[in-house]
């Protein structure tokens, strides 16, 4: 049985339903049951509805993907802007040797910390983790950690971690005495990529951006752990 479909679309699709099988029919039956009373639908129309829904779903996914890409790129740019600022400061400081003494390491870290803090006095929560970036990252984490993995993550970050009570404040240092919780590698592969100087870190349900050299909390987002 081959028909010309014309109910919902002027661009007709020729489909042989005899080869499509009962599964397709069952699927479309439930879909068309939502249509207004008296709306006549034949089997070919059902198929076309399904296809239209599929196309709509795919294009929604594509749009979401594009949006995520744009959000990720903007987020990465904001992080790079921070790195540019701190690199400019670091370049004016004496370079730390790869055979440094502890006192040299301590002085260098403190100097870099103080200078970057001074240069970012106006920095505030959400400057880098803007609401759209935070929403995207929450979705990535939620997707990565499901079921048993989520239970494990919550146990590691919220129960076992030795970084509880860490004050989370933008442009303040992450306390040296607190644990730097390991970031799950599988998650790092899915999050927007960061320059080598910047690290994602979990503290409680927050996700932080921390500068690995001066230890400053650059920004943070709340409710990161699902």
């Amino acid at each position, binding site marked *: 049985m081959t028909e010309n479909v014309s109910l919902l679309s002027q661009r007709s699709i020729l489909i042989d339903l005899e080869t499509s099988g009962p599964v397709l029919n069952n699927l479309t039956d439930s879909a068309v049951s939502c249509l207004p009373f008296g709306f006549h639908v034949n089997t070919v129309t059902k198929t076309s509805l399904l296809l239209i829904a599929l196309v709509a779903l795919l294009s929604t996914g594509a749009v979401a993907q594009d949006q995520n890409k744009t959000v990720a790129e903007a987020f990465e740019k904001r992080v790079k802007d921070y790195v540019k600022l701190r690199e400019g400061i670091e370049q004016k400081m004496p370079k*730390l*040797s*790869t*055979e*440094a*003494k*502890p*006192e*040299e*390491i*301590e002085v*260098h*870290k403190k100097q870099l910390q103080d200078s970057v803090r001074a240069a970012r006095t106006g920095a505030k929560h959400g400057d880098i983790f803007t609401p759209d970036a935070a929403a995207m990252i929450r979705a990535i984490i939620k997707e990565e950690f499901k079921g048993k*993995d989520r239970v494990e993550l919550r146990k590691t970050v919220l129960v*076992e971690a*030795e970084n509880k009570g860490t004050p989370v404040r933008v442009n303040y240092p992450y306390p*040296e*005495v607190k*644990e*730097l*919780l*390991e*970031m*799950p*590698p*599988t*998650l*790092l*592969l899915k999050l927007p*990529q*960061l320059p*080598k100087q910047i*690290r994602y870190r979990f503290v409680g349900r927050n996700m932080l951006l921390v500068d*690995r*050299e001066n*230890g400053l909390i650059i920004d943070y987002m709340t409710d990161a752990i699902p």
Partner: protein
Amino acid sequence: MKRITASFVLTILLALSSASAQKLSHSGTNGDAPASAPVKLTLPNKENSVRFVVIGDTGTGTEQQHELAQVMLSYRQAFPFEFVLMMGDNMYGSEKTVDYKTKFENVYKPLLDQKVKFYAALGNHDDSNQRFYGFFNMEGQEYYRFSKGNVSFYSLNSNYMDKKQIDWLNEKLAADTSDWKIAYFHHPPYSSGAAHGSDTKLREVVEPMFVKYGVNVVFTGHEHFYERIKPQHGIYYFISGSGGKLRKGDVKEGSPLTDKAFDRDMSFMLIEVAGDQLYFQVISRTGETVDSGVIARAKKK
């Protein structure tokens, strides 16, 4: 699996009973181990072998850490190891200048004076700036490679295994033609620890690379005990994380992963790579040998 069988079939032969023990006397004076800790070496101590120590989770500066360091020093008289691999958590708590002294330099001063080199990995308690510290020989890198004789060593940063590091590791391993490839880092992909356990997310990412490129042995820390894991996919995993801290009784009894474990006291590992054999001996703070054996590397076909 086929590839592993073809290139690196490793077999392990416990040498506890067969190894000839060398016994040395002790004066018990400054720089030596306590008289109650007789040195009993089970390693062959062959000429031109690669000799080193594995310690982890050291950075406390406690009396116990000092005592363990003394035992290491004693063993060096019988087994002149050239360097030490550090599994991370090199410094707990603050990391001021004084901490580098009290938690590392003072503890291992006799070894540092004897020009023993330390090659550190970073743990979850370590500031990234440790990579600039001269005595840790990290060359300013959080992850790096070096080689000794026929052995390649990969010091990794398991605290932050991102794409950059994975790409670097893939590239280095692919080009590596060494007989032995040893990776070491902080978090254990396999562990019978009740407090932490296996780091499965890390394992998911690193193990396929290890298998693909024939990494033979993996040393880790994080868990404050010693554990030798049953070989996994042809790889020998060891945990040596009681160099400064001990989590007594933390190894889960009857764990299917355990080949041998020791969680009653602090310990370190002595390793000797001689040709196609890697010998190991694990020593406790009281000088007891708590595990030993040899891993034989099958010749490449």
